[in-house]
């Protein structure tokens, strides 16, 4: 369990490769039931298809959620890239737009929602609050959602305009096409590890 020893150390590529074989870490190519990786061409085709079918979780925390809804509205229309099918259940979502500040009360739920999304998944931190905590440098706010879950794209702004979120989603789509995830090479279910074993309690 070499990768698991030190939670703060980035593992080397070789370690990640070994851990991938044993299904200890996340990411990597799509696997068939026998553990056989798909050829890269098929992976590309899948990625291309997936990039047009990125369904975010219907989940808003604060102000930014309203701008996220505006992106789904008529003027911006995220449906053009097949993203309008926002799923209310994390089981059917492909990613998460963390829209708003995350408090320590909400943090375990955000992590839980993230974990409930099946792989492959992508996370977009929308708004300064999700990126860094914004002005809410107080006793009850998590200073940046990336301390809890691996984030793919950061969109700063308070709140970001829908166009900015759109650019962020385009960057997510690029990552989808290339099958790159923020959690590549990380231990399986990293956030829960932190919540359970990180000191003190959540």
């Amino acid at each position, binding site marked *: 369990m070499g990768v698991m020893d030190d*939670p*703060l150390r980035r593992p080397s590529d070789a370690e990640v490769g070994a851990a991938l074989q044993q299904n200890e870490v996340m990411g990597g190519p799509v696997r068939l039931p026998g553990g056989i990786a798909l050829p890269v061409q098929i992976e590309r085709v899948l990625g291309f298809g997936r990039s047009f079918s990125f369904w975010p979780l219907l989940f808003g925390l604060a102000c930014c959620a309203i701008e996220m809804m505006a992106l789904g509205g008529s003027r911006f229309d995220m449906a053009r890239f097949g993203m309008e099918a926002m799923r209310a259940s994390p089981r059917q979502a492909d990613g998460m737009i963390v829209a708003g500040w995350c408090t320590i009360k909400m943090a375990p739920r955000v992590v839980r929602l993230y974990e409930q999304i099946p792989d492959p998944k992508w996370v977009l931190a929308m708004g300064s609050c999700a990126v860094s905590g914004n002005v809410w440098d*107080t*006793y*009850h706010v*998590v200073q940046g959602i990336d*301390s809890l879950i691996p984030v793919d794209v950061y969109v700063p702004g308070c709140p970001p305009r829908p166009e900015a979120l759109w650019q962020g989603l385009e960057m997510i789509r690029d990552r989808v096409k290339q099958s790159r995830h923020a959690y590549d090479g990380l231990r399986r279910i*990293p956030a829960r590890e*932190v919540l359970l074993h990180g000191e003190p*309690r959540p």
Partner: protein
Amino acid sequence: MNEGLDTSLTVVLAKLEKRFGGRLRKQTECCGDLTITVEPEDWMRVLSFCRSARELAFDQLDCLLGDHLPERTGAPFEVVVHLLSHTHGHRLRVTTPLAEGQDLPTITGLWPSAGFDEREAWEMYGIVFAGHPDLRRLLTTEDFEGFPMRKDFPLRGTVGGRIRTDLRGKI
């Protein structure tokens, strides 16, 4: 700005003085708001009188809040309620000073809307409302330690609540 009280508040004040006399600790007014300070023992009596008396008829509790004045060493806490009468259209502020650890009877029986307010005052300042049906933490996590709105509680950092935040970029 302090033009003094308008007539309806004068009536309220007269009525309260007639009923409670010297038991009202002090009346102040600032910017046209009338404030009555009462002893914690009289809290329930004054407020139920405000609720029921016909000339007062404060049928809505606008808000209840706690406050911390650390320089007032004997009674560093304060509970403030803002009352509103839909019948007469006047407002009244009633406050009471509280010592550390001193209880105050709940007023959820008079105005149900005090429920959340009292829970908040408890979790933020540690003011116990005796007889409150459900005095749990409201806004913070259930295992939060300390009373965050007290002046000696730090604004920053994760003093009371626990989520590790020093792992940025590591996981």
